């Protein structure tokens, strides 16, 4: 019998000696160049972190290769970041450059620091999920290929976070990203009455609809959809396999902009709808990559130094944003959902 409830391994056993010895005693840090951080402790100890982009979906061979590098240059220690980058933790300064050279030789991009576009947070897509309106890994690769130069440099006015979620469940922080790519449906689910009777609990199915578009049909022991009320969120399909909503012709992507999670300068912001629909066009999704590149450029050309996408838009006004970004404003952009909780302080910024 295995031991259960043991929890994760103790993080203290995973720390390089220099981190362990200077834990909680760091004085400052510098970004030496894109992808290379230097942290200095109060006792004068130094640790260099070399940050590397990863496709997130990786083979165990990849992990073993990364381990070989960490054994060679970092005494067998490394970490991952909250955006799926890899960080090699180097305590000997002389190992930094050889490591960077070797990483570049392997085709692994060093960067993702400072005013860059770091890795894209993304989800499972067609690789492993049953509710997606689009793929995740494919679009991320296509977009990162196009904006690669921003990962390995720090030339932008501020940092820019791009995220992708393949359906409205928005796994990850897509709803709070500078640029968010979101898989959407545009047609109502088709009900399979026979399957529904066998597999779905009707009350929870009805309760799963945010617009109350689903009503019981007790005579047939199934449900009916008021299609005029349905905005294709797909949550009923999450609850019930008899509500198939996939529609390859009409599924696609929306792009939202202006979200952030940090409290620096301004409170965290939601991303807001910029482009209501773009088609699924594998394997390269040219419409999506073109839209993202254009948004990055219009922001980079117009924002002031230090201004995140959402801060820039709030300053110039959304009306000007739509003009500069050359995006037509439509009725789709006007919120017609129930009001949220805008008076609650969703920020740590307040006075004592």
């Amino acid at each position, binding site marked *: 019998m295995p031991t259960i409830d043991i929890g994760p391994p103790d993080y203290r056993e995973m720390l390089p000696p220099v981190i362990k010895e200077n834990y909680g005693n760091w004085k400052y840090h510098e970004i030496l160049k894109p992808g290379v951080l230097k942290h200095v402790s109060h006792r004068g100890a130094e640790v260099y972190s070399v940050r590397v982009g990863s496709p997130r979906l990786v083979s165990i061979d990849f992990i073993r290769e990364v381990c070989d590098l960490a054994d060679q240059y970092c005494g067998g220690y490394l970490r*991952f970041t909250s955006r799926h980058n890899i960080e090699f933790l180097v305590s000997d300064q002389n190992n930094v450059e050889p490591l960077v050279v070797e990483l570049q030789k392997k085709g692994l991009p060093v960067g993702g620091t400072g005013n860059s576009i770091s890795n894209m947070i993304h989800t499972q897509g067609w690789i492993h999920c049953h509710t997606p309106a689009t793929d995740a890994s494919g679009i991320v690769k296509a977009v990162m290929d196009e904006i690669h130069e921003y990962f390995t440099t720090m030339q932008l006015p501020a940092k820019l976070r791009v995220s992708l979620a393949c359906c409205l469940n928005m796994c990850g922080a*897509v709803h709070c990203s500078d640029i968010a790519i979101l898989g959407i449906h545009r047609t109502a689910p088709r009900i399979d009455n026979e399957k529904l009777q066998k597999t779905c609990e009707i009350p929870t199915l009805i309760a799963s609809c945010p617009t109350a578009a689903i009503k019981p049909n007790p005579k047939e022991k199934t449900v009916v959809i008021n299609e005029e009320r349905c905005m294709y969120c797909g949550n009923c399909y999450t609850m019930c396999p008899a509500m198939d909503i996939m529609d390859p012709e009409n599924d696609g992507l929306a792009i939202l902009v202006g979200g952030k999670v940090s*409290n620096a300068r301004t409170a965290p912001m939601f991303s807001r709808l910029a482009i209501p629909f773009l088609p699924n066009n594998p394997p390269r999704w040219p419409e999506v990559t073109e839209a993202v590149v254009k948004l990055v450029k219009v922001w980079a050309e117009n924002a002031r130094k230090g201004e995140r996408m959402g801060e820039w838009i709030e300053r110039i006004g959304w009306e000007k944003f739509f003009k500069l970004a050359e995006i037509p404003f439509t009725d789709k952009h006007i919120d017609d959902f129930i009001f949220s*909780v805008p008076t609650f302080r969703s920020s740590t910024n307040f006075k004592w």
Partner: protein
Amino acid sequence: MAEDLKTPLLDELEKGPWPSFVTEMKKAAEKKPAAADLMRQLEQSYVDKKGHWKHGGIVGVKGYGGGVIGRYSDSPEQFPGVAEFHTMRVNQPSGWFYTTEALRKICDVWEKHGSGLTNFHGSTGDVILLGTTTEHIQPAFDEFSDAGFDLGGSGSDLRTPSCCVGKARCEFACIDTMDLCHDLTNEFQDELHRPMWPYKFKLKISGCANDCVASIARADCSVIGTWRDALVIDAEAVKEYARAGMDIKAEVCDKCPTRALEWDTAGMELKFNAEDCTRCMHCINKMPKALSPGKERGATILLGGKATILQSAFLSWVIVPFMKMEPPYEEVKDFLRRIWEWWDEHGKTRERIGELIYRKGMGTFLREVGLEPSPAMVFRPRANPYVFWQPEDVNK
């Protein structure tokens, strides 16, 4: 590799400068028929522009109710290698720090029992082991357990907590995020492994308001480090930034949300009004050698962050303006238990804590959980007079 593996659309994604997930899948496909069939099925998805996974699937390990995501292909005859293709979530160490020895152990077990494909990491923080069959789940878990790894959360449970790098490598950390994350994960193993609640509950810990794990957006409970006294200013180091060419007025003071900072250009002096500071971190971010968080440190606790479903996305909002965060962390544990008990009692099926508070009202929530109202909880007070008075508030 399987000789007949033809994936012209996916092959396009081996081109270009960004590291390719297709290349990774091919590496795995050389050794594992399951990974080859995953590629074939994905290629078919690219042709059809739709996914090919069947709805749901409930699988797991003995003793637990969560941690494994069942997944079945909708075309098992065509892609037998992914007829069953379940995901195991393995609880990551705090802050995603690893020894290569630990990572190699994960690889060895997954080579034996799975597809050889992984995500480092899932959005919540777990190591995602992508693709195995039902019969391999228990043996894989047994070997992970022997190697010192446990499963993470899934379903209506406490999901795997995660945290930023904190004191391990950040001078901004106001609390020991990694220790708190580890401690809470161990304290609440039962709540994590055996789903017992109305819905999922996520907990994320950031050491400061930069919120490097996006806790405010994607955790029901966001613990964010802060301080109560004045930030610490090294006047000489500020001058260094000025001498090095930083425009302190424009880049720092003018961007302060409350204008708590003023730069005296002639005197090279940074004037600071602590009472006006809302601890947004901007000035500290700009001048890490000169400015640091105050000495009286703890955390602000916010609740309610969630994605769209059902009632739109919520950002967590302030519930406890300030709480000390020191081992054994009894105060925060007690807080969490009270929240969970109230939610378990009142929450509807699949109702997140934020939605429950929204439905019942902050007043009811605060009274029933035993918390004090504070102006820090709102950006601004209500604009309507639709107030519920309690019987004890009015004359009988």
